[in-house]
């Protein structure tokens, strides 16, 4: 079997090798790159990330990757965002006051739980609910749990972009997508078999 090929965007935001390992596990041959031209020419792009949005956005701009991601999205080929990569798809983040890619309408806000027992960052396994119908979510059931690590959450304004929710003091959109773009706030590469099952669908998914 020939492995499906994908590009993982490297912008010094976290352990891209974990994502690459998870890809290998599900039969995706993923190349890690920071070259905007390779991103533009790719068939499938994975946009991961952990860490702070401000340095991430700055690095993406500096390396010409912001423009490359927008161009790639415009080709209509599958784009997968994970965690920080998911947040940066929106228009704006409160973290460091940065404008983001704006591929999804909405903004990224900081958790401010009233309950002191809810700690920030939100670290650990949490459930997804109201799971939307989407080819990438074929193997996801109501209440399935995934691994989260984040202090900010996405608030996409277009309701049809919402594909799932998670409750952490406030109910936030943890799975989102539109057209050829699909993204999760949780870490697909660290969510055990459930995460790998979503990643595996990325092999076949086309937004046509």
């Amino acid at each position, binding site marked *: 079997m020939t492995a499906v090929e994908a590009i993982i965007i490297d912008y010094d935001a*976290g*352990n891209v*090798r*974990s994502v690459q*390992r*998870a890809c290998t*596990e599900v039969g995706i041959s993923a190349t890690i790159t920071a070259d905007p031209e390779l991103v533009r020419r790719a068939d499938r792009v994975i946009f991961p990330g*952990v*860490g*702070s949005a401000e340095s991430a956005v700055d690095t993406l701009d500096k390396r010409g990757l912001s423009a490359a991601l927008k161009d790639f999205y415009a080709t209509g080929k599958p784009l997968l965002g994970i965690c920080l990569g998911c947040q940066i798809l929106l228009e704006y983040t409160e973290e460091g006051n940065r404008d983001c890619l704006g591929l999804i309408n909405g903004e990224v806000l900081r958790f401010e739980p009233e309950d*002191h*027992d*809810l*700690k*920030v*960052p*939100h*670290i*650990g*396994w*949490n*459930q997804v609910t109201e799971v939307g119908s989407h080819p990438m979510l074929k193997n996801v*059931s109501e*209440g*399935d*749990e995934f*691994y989260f*690590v*984040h*202090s900010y959450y996405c608030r996409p304004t277009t309701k049809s972009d919402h594909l799932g929710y998670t*409750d*952490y003091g406030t109910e936030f959109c943890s799975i989102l997508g539109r057209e050829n773009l699909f993204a999760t706030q949780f870490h697909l*590469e*660290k*969510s*055990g*078999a*459930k*995460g*790998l099952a979503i990643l595996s669908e990325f092999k076949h998914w086309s937004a046509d």
Partner: protein
Amino acid sequence: MLSKRIIACLDVREGNLAKSVKFVDTKDIGDPVAKAKEYYLDGLDELVMYDITASSDKRNIMLDVVEKVAEQIFIPFSVGGGIRSVEDANKLLWSGAEKINLNSAAVQRPELISECTFAIGSQNIVLSMDIKKVEVNRDFPSGYEVVINGGRTPVGIDALFWALKGEELGAGELVINSIDADGTREGYEINLTRMIAEAVSIPVIASGGAGKPEHLLEVLTEGKADAALIASMVHFGDYTVSGLKAWLDERGVRVRKTW
């Protein structure tokens, strides 16, 4: 709702799995890669590996073990033991660790925490604290003291003070390891765990003393821990990860049940 995490700890010495009792008399009990995979498939939420290799020239064996484990498990994976610089941390991250556990070296040079959080991000830096009960006095208002070198060396720092300092320097999580309870299988140090969990606003992982499911229940409720670290309980086959989670779930503790 967020689940309480069950974290298995593998003490690895020169590539083999070891389990210590009160940090002495370690004995080898098997292959860490096989154990990691077994626990992962049985619903483990997170894995921690501590390198307890005595000599630093053999530490590269650990990088190899980390790499092999990272190819097998797709859950958060944390590594500690002998990390003295951002360079040490980066080597482990590159080999496949997600989170870096700082311990003795951070006590000796607290800037190590801020250096690592700056380079790697707070969410990936865990401050692991070995703590011993002492008499409450002016130097130790909490009644607990930080110790290093596997529990052998007291450092004259109050445990609660150090937990708050660690948070301030950017640590994303704390491991609270009671040296008194470690390996006894008589239960976690509940007072210590609760005191620190209530004082900080980052997640707290309770460590040391787990022997029965009741101990996990106690520390995850009364002890206010966000996660419980286990070792002997599962290493010697007395309990399984899935069995423990089912037991906790029946008693109303929210744990991850689908995998």
